[in-house]
C-alpha cells in the first residue's frame, strides 16, 4: 500500500512565524502536490512538483514556497504565517506512469490542520 505521511496532524503557530509542513511518500512516486482545504471551497492546489528540485505554481501560491530536495519528500513553507493561512493542508502523490500508461490516481496524506493565531 502507498503511504503518504505528513509531519503533524495539528499545528498551532503565531502570526509571522516561519512554518514547515513536511510530506513523505514511500512508493517512489514522481509527482507530489500540496493542497489546502477550506469549507465550501474544496481543495485548492498550492504547488506541485514533477521531479526532484522541480516545482510549479498551482492556483494559490501566494505566501507559500516549496522544496523538493529528495524524490520522496515535498515540503511546504509558509515564510511568514498569517491568520488567513489557517486551514487544512493536504499532501498527495501520484506515480506518473504505471506499466507505461499515465496514472491519474492521487494518494493523499492524512492532512495537517494548521491554526495561525
Amino acid at each position, binding site marked *: 500500500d502507498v503511504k503518504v505521511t505528513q509531519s503533524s496532524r495539528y499545528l498551532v503557530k503565531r502570526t509571522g512565524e516561519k512554518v514547515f509542513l513536511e510530506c513523505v511518500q514511500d512508493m517512489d512516486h514522481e509527482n507530489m502536490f500540496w493542497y489546502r482545504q477550506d469549507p*465550501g471551497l474544496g*481543495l485548492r492546489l498550492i504547488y506541485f512538483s*514533477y521531479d526532484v528540485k522541480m516545482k510549479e505554481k498551482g492556483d494559490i501560491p501566494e505566501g507559500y514556497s516549496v522544496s523538493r530536495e529528495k524524490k520522496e519528500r515535498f515540503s511546504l513553507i509558509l515564510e511568514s504565517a498569517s491568520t488567513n493561512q489557517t486551514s487544512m493542508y493536504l499532501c498527495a502523490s501520484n506515480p506518473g506512469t504505471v506499466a507505461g500508461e499515465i496514472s491519474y490516481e492521487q494518494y493523499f496524506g492524512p492532512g495537517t490542520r494548521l491554526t495561525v493565531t
Partner: protein
Amino acid sequence: GIQVEQSPPDLILQEGANSTLRCNFSDSVNNLQWFHQNPWGQLINLFYIPSGTKQNGRLSATTVATERYSLLYISSSQTTDSGVYFCASLRDYGQNFVFGPGTRLSVLP
C-alpha cells in the same frame, strides 16, 4: 479554467437509503474523478471515470462528458459512508485536478 460544481452541498440520510450526488463542470473535460474524505480527514480515490459507468460494490458512477456532468450513486447507505464526497476534473495540463466544493453526507443509524 474549468469550474466544478457539486450538489447538494449537504445531505442527511437514514441508514439503508439510496442517494445520488451530482457534479457539473463548466467545459468539456477529458476525465473526472470521485473522492471520499472520511470524518477523520483521509481522502481516498473512488472512481476515475472520464465517461461511461463504473461500479464498485454499493457505489457506482456515471459520467456524461458531452453534457458535462457526472453522478455518484450510493445504494443501501451505511454510517461508514459519511464524510465529504468530492469530484475533480483533470486540468488541461499536467496530472492534477480542479476540485469541486464537495457534498457533505451524513448517514444516521
